[in-house]
């Protein structure tokens, strides 16, 4: 199920820890980065590599909100809507994504280009509103700015 590179990477991470299960979160990150999401098969396979019961892995993987359990679009927009961003207009941005791209929170555009997840605080309150596109960080967002930024992600 997991490709060899991923397995090697997981085993490398394992060596940083005193016990195998401690490397579970980083291992799930490796898999998610590679495949975009954590399919049930991938979850099971991570369990097998680390010798952690697969149901335990599932319990852990679903606890954390940054792991994805369904396929994502090519680019993941993580938009903060917590208080500081909210009072600085984050809700409007959510509306724009809806009107301009047909993108609702927790969904993917029909062309598979974007997925949107609304976030709790991402620590950018001074320059709110803010978002992550994949792992790139953007702040001081306005209606125009968000449109310009997203143009760079095809």
């Amino acid at each position, binding site marked *: 199920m997991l490709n060899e590179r991923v397995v090697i990477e997981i085993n490398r991470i394992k060596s940083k820890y005193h016990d*195998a299960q401690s490397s579970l979160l980083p291992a799930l990150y490796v898999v998610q980065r590679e495949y975009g999401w954590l399919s049930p098969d991938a979850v099971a396979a991570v369990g097998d590599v680390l010798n952690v019961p697969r149901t335990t892995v599932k319990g852990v993987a679903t*606890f954390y*909100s940054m792991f994805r359990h369904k396929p994502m679009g090519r680019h993941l927009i993580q938009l903060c809507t*917590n*208080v500081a961003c*909210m*009072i600085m207009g984050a809700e409007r941005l959510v509306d724009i994504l809806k009107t301009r791209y047909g993108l609702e929170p927790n969904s993917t555009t029909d062309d598979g280009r974007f997925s949107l997840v609304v976030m709790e*605080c991402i620590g950018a309150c001074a320059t709110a509103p803010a978002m992550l596109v994949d792992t790139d960080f953007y702040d001081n967002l306005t209606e125009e700015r968000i449109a310009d930024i997203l143009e760079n992600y095809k």
Partner: protein
Amino acid sequence: MEKFLLKNIENPNSADIAEYIKTGGYKALSKALELKPSDIIDEVKRSGLRGRGGAGFPTGMKWAFAAADSKKPKFILCNADEGEPGTFKDRPILEKNPHLLIEGMIISGYALQAEYGYIYLRGEYPEAKDILEDAIKQAHDKGYLGDDVLGKGIRFYLHVHQGAGAYICGEETALIESLEGRRGQPRIKPPFPVNEGFLSKPTVVNNVETLANIPYIMEIGAEAYSKLGSPDCPGPKLYSVSGHVKMPGVYELPMGTTLREIIYTHCGGIRDGKKLKAVIPGGISTPILPPEKIDCPMDFVSMPKHGSMLGSGAVIVFDETVDLVKVCLRAMKFFEHESCGKCTPCREGVGWLRAIIERIYNGSGTEKDIDLLLEVSKNITGKTFCPLGDGAAGVVQGFIKDFRHEFEQHISKQVKAAA
């Protein structure tokens, strides 16, 4: 005041080890390694440093507990989960001054005789991960980390461990569970982490800012350090200010600076000539304060006397245009989303609070709902497993205490509309 924690961050290369060393970095480490580990702990004790993660626990005392436990190995964990909404004070250290943190961790590792340190970094800071890992590598190459720190025969290894989106993992025992690859649910205390923490071994969990203060204490000495800031809570403090001020951002100020000074002196006051309506002083888990109370000093001891808490020192400022019921609702959605689900009152009760606030906000609430909110929150208070649930209840109580009229307005608007 001279900046220490945020020294040099305007320098675009501040994260580079050469720049750090150029401005005196890693000198504190050399100094510390000349001391006995127990002397460092005494020094930290005498400095009066209190943990900056929110609870304000005396750091030296925590270290002494862990040092006294004979189990091996020991671990030092840096809490870089910074999940409290409104908080972004650790971020400049992590991204702009990573060596300060690393230096603090090496010193603490030596003091505790811990050979392993982990930085538990929130998943929402992917850039910080790369920066920290580069910095660790640099420190390693320079001999500050690894098998033989500065040729002193001491071993210290440091790793970054990324969280994955769970506010509760900022709570130290949940953080440890998470680091062990489990669901991030808090543990029963006692045993405390200092005795049975990561992998059941003695473990110190300290906030980023706390650890970043360590080199400073080494540098200027406990004596001098203890004279900074408030008498009970010495040292510099990072305040992260957001919302409707002219100059939001992270400010390094003496501990105990008043909210008024922070908002008006340092952040330039309320923007667009609006009036101040309310302030959340320490992240959204801390009760909201009305403008009359902004003269209180922002430290661990003074804030509770004024009906709130210092928390993480995250100040969110609201001007007169803000609908506080909406803010309260958003806060409650946050707590509902972040409840780990372990204990009954938080898992079930916080969602209920959110539901009541939501119907008030949507205009279908009744007069009785405010009392119901108070009752439900009272039923949560003091009964939860960890402070998260308590915090949520306290937030609701705080909003109603000083801003009950806003809730009533929502309700009566609806009543009018119906009539």
